[in-house]
């Protein structure tokens, strides 16, 4: 795999590992946008990254350790990591679910994360039910000051919204697309209407249609074990993976007529328009147009 020549894709901080993957004193070799890299951990809290060419270490890459993940960038002028305050609140439980490999483009994954209409069919009787499939209209905006896409006032009926839920409920969601490779959601906590669980997905694009997903969470849940929460999250994600690996084409089509959206897809439509405006070509179906 050759490194991408797309300058837009390169100038991001991208998740490239999590602490459980890199042993202290050891390293983990992985791929970022087609470029082989090595992430090493000389001391418990110190991570380093470098380009790997034919087994030899090359240029050092900058590293940030944040949101239970390790981030690096191949670019000279990367967009800064987002601000997610929930990860700094002292009473939150921070949980990293590790990483899951998915063979599709990063944007199909972001779109799936942003989508409520699939809950009744893909997460049947957990995040949705076949009796209540309606997606009520919600607000989507491109917040120019932070250059993020926000979806607010999202509501959906859920039979078992989280590991902590004890029955069906209308769940309120807020979504935040923070970059082409990162998204998060806030969903209301079952026993505390004033607070939200924060669940992120950082996508590491290894190639145009090979990704790793990291899903760190900052939760308000003092009941469930970490293992049970991770188990719940993995179950959901594996259900999504069956879909994600069977969309055609795997690369994201941006031409308006390629796929047919409806009102429930305003988030996806806004996201695609945003991708088009930024001129990204990595992982995009229409190579000539990019």
């Amino acid at each position, binding site marked *: 795999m050759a490194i991408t020549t797309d300058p837009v894709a390169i100038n991001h901080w991208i998740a490239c590992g999590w602490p459980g993957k890199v042993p202290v004193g050891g390293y983990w070799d992985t791929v970022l946008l087609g470029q082989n890299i090595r992430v090493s951990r000389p001391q418990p809290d110190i991570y380093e990254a470098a380009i790997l060419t034919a087994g030899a270490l090359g240029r050092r890459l900058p590293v940030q350790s944040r949101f239970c993940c390790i981030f690096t960038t191949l670019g000279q002028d990367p967009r800064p990591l987002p601000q997610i305050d929930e990860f700094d609140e002292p009473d939150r439980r921070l949980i990293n679910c590790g990483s899951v490999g998915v063979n599709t483009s990063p944007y199909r994954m972001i779109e799936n994360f942003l989508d409520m209409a699939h809950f009744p069919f893909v997460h049947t009787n957990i995040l949705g039910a076949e009796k209540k499939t*309606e997606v009520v209209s919600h607000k989507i905006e491109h917040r120019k000051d932070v250059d993020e896409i926000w979806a607010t006032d999202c509501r959906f009926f859920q039979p078992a919204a989280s590991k902590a839920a004890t029955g069906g409920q209308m769940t309120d969601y807020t979504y935040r697309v923070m970059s082409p490779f990162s998204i998060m959601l806030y969903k209301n906590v079952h026993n505390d209407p004033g607070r939200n669980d924060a669940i992120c997905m950082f996508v590491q694009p290894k190639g145009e249609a090979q990704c790793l997903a990291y899903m760190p969470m900052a939760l308000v849940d003092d009941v469930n074990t970490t293992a049970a929460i991770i188990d719940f999250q993995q179950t959901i994600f594996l259900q999504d993976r069956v879909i994600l690996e069977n*969309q055609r084409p795997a690369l994201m089509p941006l031409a308006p007529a390629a796929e047919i959206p*409806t009102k429930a897809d305003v988030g996806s439509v806004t996201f695609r328009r945003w991708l088009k405006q930024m001129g990204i070509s990595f992982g995009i179906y229409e190579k000539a147009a990019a």
Partner: protein
Amino acid sequence: MQINDQVEADRWVGVALDSQIQSASSHPVILNGRELALWRGESGPARVWDDRCPHRGMRLSFGFVRGNTLRCLYHGWTYGENGHCEAIPAHPDLAPPKTICASTHGTAAKYGIIWVNLSATRAAHVPDLPNQPGWLPVRSVHLRASAPQVLDGIAEFDYGEPARTSMPAQNACVVVLGSDTQLFFALQPIGLDKTGLHVVVNESGEPQIPRRQRLARQVARLRDTIEAGGGGVWPSPRTL
């Protein structure tokens, strides 16, 4: 933009045995590298569409059947037999616009085989076989060989008795064994080195199930022989 914009030749290709496609089921089929969904409602004929939901591209071969509609696994969009979208669950009160339609293909069931024509014109006919009724399924196999290699293999095979081979159409082959048995082979080019073979038989006497089971085993032998690249020996007529 169209995702599948190649121009397809106007010809019918066998892609499955009709008896294999149960009611209320959907299956993936590949024809010359093109991904298709072959499905059947709770009643009626099988249909072949592009394996791609117009909404967000999910493969329709993963879909599920309710009544005589095919529903996409991702968001449950519901397609009628003519391909038109009849329901969008995210908007239960909305009548989907007529323009939303799965990409459908000409499909026919003849001689116990499901035939597909991917062209838009569809002027061609399904290959004509002598005895219209009386064709019974033997089996389908997939081979690691190109379609021309499979055709050669069928023609060169030692059937252990006089065999006359003819080709009523491209990718179709009839082998007459002795005086009363005709085997029909429909070839499905999957990729450069992969071919599906769908076999039916027509006997002048009473159809015999044990005999067809033996024929089915012989088709597997034919496959092994072709994949091994040699001309094998068909068992003697007595064991058929």
